[in-house]
């Protein structure tokens, strides 16, 4: 029904009426910017909230890196800010573990899950499949506000007297189940669990919406195999989330019960500080199964959208089709399936049945095959291209480099024999920060640089973007590459001071180097944040509808699309999105009908 209505409305909006008017419904400030149901605004809300969280999470890592690099130095300024948590200018153990836990939780869930797929699924799905909005804009709005609520609860836990949860982002019981186990296990952990429950609701609402939108609301001619790989990636991401997050929810709820209602799901045979607890018959390992049944797919929930965006951005900027579209799609599918079948590789040394362990070794190393296919296809996409190094393209190339480096160390850890030695050492920290943390961040940055003109109608400043890229790229390798050596020497994770150890204490110079680089890299991220907000208002204006010369549908919308995305009819799609360099033409948009003499591929 609303086809004509929205048409007239967007035309009206386009006619420079500053106050946008939608037919007969007025958009107030609140309905346009706060409780908005426009997928583009919701995407920006996710992005900006994600940026705020990334600053918080990154700052935490700077704080605990200070402790790691300079365990015997004092920083009086810390006491000024954090009082008892940094008594005498030294980060106290409880505070350290709170920082580590919050850093992990915030970056994994709030930044790289909500901030990444929340942003790009929302902005790109309707724009790239040719829909006016999500299947359910209202649920979409709720998805953001549940995330916001989760953020408020998590943030508040940082300010309670006993401090935030400090049991590590995996929150293993019994440590997380016993209030006697430490300060961080008091109210902070309850707030963490409540916040995660809200977050899961948000993620499910968002995910269901993405899936139904992709399945039902594609424009005419947009068959599934004509979708850009970004959409396929967020599609698989959403399915992973919908199938695995409920399991974490159940795990978290049972943990809340154990904490507050005296149940014994995870507790058995416990004597803590001389106090004998009555619980018997629970299994602490049960939680790990529930957690990692989400936790491993979660890795791919973080990584797949980055892969999708990198595929798209590399293709656009090499001016060349993505190599092996169907293989890319097949490998995404294979990764999504295998993601559910490898969770116990996080548990090789929990006393898991060795036979079961061997099955998980096989399945885990199997993931390397589709991953390798993706890497080779990206390389071939670059081969004989005509590559433009836009900031987005640089971050995409950086992503591939990091994905190779971090993926290869995964082959060490996925092999249970080697994992015995490397499990829970700094090697693991280096591995997952490269492959899941930094690589996904690179995918996210690539996406922001590439679609910023679509989001805000302006460009980001290129000089700042290039400085941001090079500092981050060099810094990431300087931080994490040598860290593997610490892991090979067996230095355990989460050790805030190694001076009491004979065998772990010979990396002082390395730790200091890493800390200094961390601070520099963090500063480079602040530069990005500045560039982001500065360019929203002051950036160079986009003057062309299709600034990158891309084929996908989002570039057929007006430079500043209103609610409803297209003036007039939604465009019809006639071809796949990767017809670059075909028949001597630089690019052929998806909306162009296939010509009579066009060559087939």
């Amino acid at each position, binding site marked *: 029904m609303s086809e004509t209505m929205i048409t007239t409305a967007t035309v009206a909006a386009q006619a420079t009426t500053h106050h946008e008017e939608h037919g007969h419904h007025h958009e107030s400030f609140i309905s346009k910017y706060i409780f908005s149901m426009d997928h583009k605004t919701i995407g920006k809300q996710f992005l900006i909230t994600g940026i705020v969280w990334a600053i918080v999470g990154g700052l935490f890592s700077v704080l605990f890196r200070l402790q790691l690099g300079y365990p015997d130095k004092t920083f009086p300024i810390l006491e000024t800010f954090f009082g008892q948590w940094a008594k005498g200018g030294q980060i106290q153990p409880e505070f350290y573990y709170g920082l580590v836990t919050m850093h992990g939780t915030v970056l994994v869930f709030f930044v790289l899950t909500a901030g990444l797929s929340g942003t790009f699924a929302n902005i790109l799905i309707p724009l790239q499949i040719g829909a006016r909005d999500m299947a359910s804009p209202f649920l979409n709005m709720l998805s953001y506000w549940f995330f916001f609520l989760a953020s408020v609860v998590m943030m508040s836990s940082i300010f309670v007297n006993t401090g935030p949860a400090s049991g590590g982002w995996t929150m293993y019981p019994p440590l997380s189940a016993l209030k006697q186990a430490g300060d961080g296990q008091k109210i902070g952990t309850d707030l963490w669990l409540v916040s995660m429950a809200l977050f899961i609701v948000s993620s499910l609402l968002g995910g269901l919406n993405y899936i139904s939108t992709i399945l039902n609301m594609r424009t005419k001619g947009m068959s599934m195999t004509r979708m850009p790989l970004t959409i396929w990636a967020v599609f698989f991401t959403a399915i992973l989330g919908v199938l695995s997050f409920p399991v974490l929810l159940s795990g978290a709820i049972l943990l809340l019960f154990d904490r507050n209602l005296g149940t014994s799901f995870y507790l058995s045979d416990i004597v803590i500080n*001389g106090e004998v607890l009555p619980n018997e018959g629970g299994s602490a390992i049960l939680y790990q199964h529930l957690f990692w049944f989400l936790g491993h797919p979660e890795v791919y929930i973080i990584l797949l959208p980055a892969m999708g965006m990198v595929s798209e951005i590399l293709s656009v900027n090499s001016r060349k089709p993505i190599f092996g579209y169907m293989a890319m799609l097949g490998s995404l599918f294979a990764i999504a399936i295998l993601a559910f079948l490898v969770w116990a590789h996080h548990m090789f040394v929990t006393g898991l049945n060795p036979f079961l362990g*061997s099955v998980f070794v096989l399945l885990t190393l199997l993931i390397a095959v589709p991953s390798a296919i993706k890497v080779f296809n990206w390389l071939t996409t670059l081969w004989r291209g005509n*590559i433009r190094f836009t900031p987005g393209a640089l971050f995409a190339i950086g992503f591939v480099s990091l994905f190779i480096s971090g993926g290869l160390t995964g082959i060490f850890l996925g092999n249970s024999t*080697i994992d015995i030695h490397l499990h*829970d050492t700094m090697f693991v920290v280096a591995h997952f920060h490269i492959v899941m943390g930094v690589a996904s961040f690179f995918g996210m940055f690539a996406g922001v640089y590439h679609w910023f003109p679509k989001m805000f109608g302006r460009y980001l400043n290129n000089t700042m973007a290039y400085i941001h890229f090079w500092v981050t790229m060099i810094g990431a390798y300087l931080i994490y590459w040598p860290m593997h*050596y610490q892991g090979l020497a067996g230095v355990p994770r989460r050790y805030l001071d190694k001076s009491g150890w004979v065998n772990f204490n010979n990396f002082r110079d390395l730790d200091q180097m890493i800390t200094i680089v961390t601070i520099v890299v963090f500063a480079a991220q602040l530069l990005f944040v500045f560039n982001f907000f500065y360019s929203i208002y002051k950036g160079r204006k986009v003057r062309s509808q299709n600034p990158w010369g891309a084929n996908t549908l989002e570039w057929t919308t007006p430079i500043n699309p209103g609610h409803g995305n297209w003036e007039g009819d939604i465009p019809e799609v006639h071809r796949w999105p990767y017809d670059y360099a075909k028949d001597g033409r630089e690019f052929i948009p998806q909306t162009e009908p296939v010509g009579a003499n066009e060559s087939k591929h």
Partner: protein
Amino acid sequence: MQTFFILAILVLVFVIILQISKASEYVSQIKGYENARKQSNRINGFMLLGFLIFGLIGVYLCNEWLKDRILGEPASDHGELVDQMLYVTLAITSIVFICTQVALFWFAYKYQESDHRKAYYYPHNNRLELIWTVIPAIALSVLVGFGIFYWFKITGPAPKDAMVVEVVGKQFGWEFRYPGADGVLGKKYFKKVDAVTGNPAGQLWEDPANHDDVFVEQEMHLVVGKPVQLVIGAKDVIHDVGLVHFRMKMDAVPGTPTTMWFTPKFTTKEMKEKTGNKDFVYELSCDQMCGKGHWSMRGTIVVETQEEFDAWMASKKPQYLVANPDKDLTAKKDSASVALPMTTAVAKN
């Protein structure tokens, strides 16, 4: 003051970058965006190539810098298998790493935008796809095969003649129990744990197998060349028995006992010579986040000859006698040598 200077420098650098960025925006406005873009494209192309070259040199230098700090020779039979697997994997992944990274950055540099080149329309090639599906699959099968073979060797049942030691983690330390002459660990029940009455392990005294079990804290003694099976548990939260030199690791889970076994190859004395570190000790680290003292949860292990071990064991009194001094017949005969533990036990009672 130093922090203040660092902050000041950071702010200054920030301001400079902002000014340069603004200026470059104006410059490109004057020169024309297309020209500016092409120039920065060339610069970034060179930087990508430079990153590859300096990156690979950096990888080499990093190895030179740190290679002596990773652990030397493994100190257990299982450790040899782990290291062997590690080096095989390292060899294969290094080849892949160098080939793919070189290809990535070289292609990026070589095929950077040029007015003289047109991109090549190359959407797919089934044979290539097949090749790079099959080759990784074969390489990984080799790794999986070796990995599982070693894994079963390491996790297989302990030899019959293995000595047994119980290891229990608690916030934040380690407890050990030796089965004594009968070679059997007596039964225990967590509700009997009571350090005050001399029963920190929760042993059931009615089980006669408990009567000769020896309880010690923080330091474990093992015999060189003799397989040892650790029976691992935890009192409060999950800990992890990490033995870096033996390349062994196993979680300590409250309520669910776990085990692992290995054979120490070198005594502590031999390791002191091998490492050239006269302070060398085998350390037992907690590798699973267990609370605020996690980082300091350290135990030590002494690996010694059978004679030294026997002498050490003979100096220990079974916990049963510590907890029940009235049963201690030797103490009455030879009160001088064991007077101290007896009186403390009595005092606690």
